[in-house]
């Protein structure tokens, strides 16, 4: 790609980002949002996060499921347990990464 095309892409991507992120902030006045939809949106954040996480934890690069004893899978399970026990994000990360590193080096 030429430098001009790359800069056009960058400007275009900026417009796409502003457009999608403020879509209903701009159109909300003209597109009424039913209470039911607003209620449904409460579940959106957790669903979006799990949709980002699940393929990373459960799949190997290039497709296919990981083995039951994969360090990523076990570390994620340890992290869930740590979060339930400590309610601290940083403690969860520390315990999870310690498990991940230990399993990769000696697992």
């Amino acid at each position, binding site marked *: *790609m030429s*430098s001009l095309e*790359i*800069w056009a*892409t*960058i*400007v*275009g*991507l*900026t417009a*796409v*980002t*502003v457009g*999608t*992120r*403020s*879509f*209903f*902030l*701009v159109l*909300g*006045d003209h597109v009424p*949002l039913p209470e039911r*939809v*607003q*209620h449904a*949106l*409460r*579940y*959106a*954040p*957790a*669903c*979006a*996060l*799990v*949709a*980002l*996480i*699940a*393929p*990373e934890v*459960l*799949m190997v690069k290039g*497709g296919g*499921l990981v083995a039951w004893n994969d360090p990523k899978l076990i*570390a*994620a399970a340890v*992290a*869930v347990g740590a*979060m*339930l026990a400590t309610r601290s*994000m*940083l403690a*969860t*990360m520390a315990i*999870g*990464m310690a498990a*991940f590193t230990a399993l*990769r080096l000696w697992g």
Partner: protein
Amino acid sequence: MPQLVFGRDAAVARTRRAAFRDGLRAVLPATVATGPWGLVTGVAMVKVGLTPWEALGMTLLVFAGSAQLAALPLIAASAPVWVILLAATVVNLRFVIFSAGLYPYFKRFPLPKRLLLGYLTSDVGFAISLQRWTAQERNDPAAARGSTEQVWFFLGIAAGNWLAWQSMSIVGIFVGAQVPGSWGLDYAAILALVALTVPMVASRPALVGAATSGVVAVAAAGFPLKLGLVAAVLAGIAAAMAADIAGERLRGRA
């Protein structure tokens, strides 16, 4: 300088500053996820062949990790600009859903400020803010949406997130490929997301929705243009709503 940011009215400025600080504090743990992502994206931009200036321009202007990462292989393949923009739009579709969730809180602002608030919306910022605001509404159903406190909390999150993302992304651009993949730093990002998700699935409908979303995301991982992500979010929301309605019926009968 503080006057410039928080305004001249002392009482209002105090509220704004306290809420801004709360936001910064709330986003701090999540920057552990944002930072490595920024680093990886910074490295990836340079590896694809962007000059440092182009990479800097991209991170400072676009400010959208997943859209940037989606665009890079297409840039490397010299795809037409419109194809790249379409792919980025689809990857960003979740933000359209987020904007609908944020609308009740930001609708009192004029258009330019709404565009700015939209631009500053991140996955993490949306999740933390809406989580806190809906909890506030459960405690006080009569509270008005979009209070000064709520908006400045959001801005505090946005500021912390922006700084963490940009600084690490710029480090990534200049340190480039010298970060060894063997550090496993990228997995810290995923574990941070796990920690962020656990408190959000405290109710049965949320758990059903999250599980459904995860299964669909894995099953649809091969979909082109990251459409699997959109399918997963939609399926998850639908399942959560179904569980919600089923739960209401059961309670009604009991």
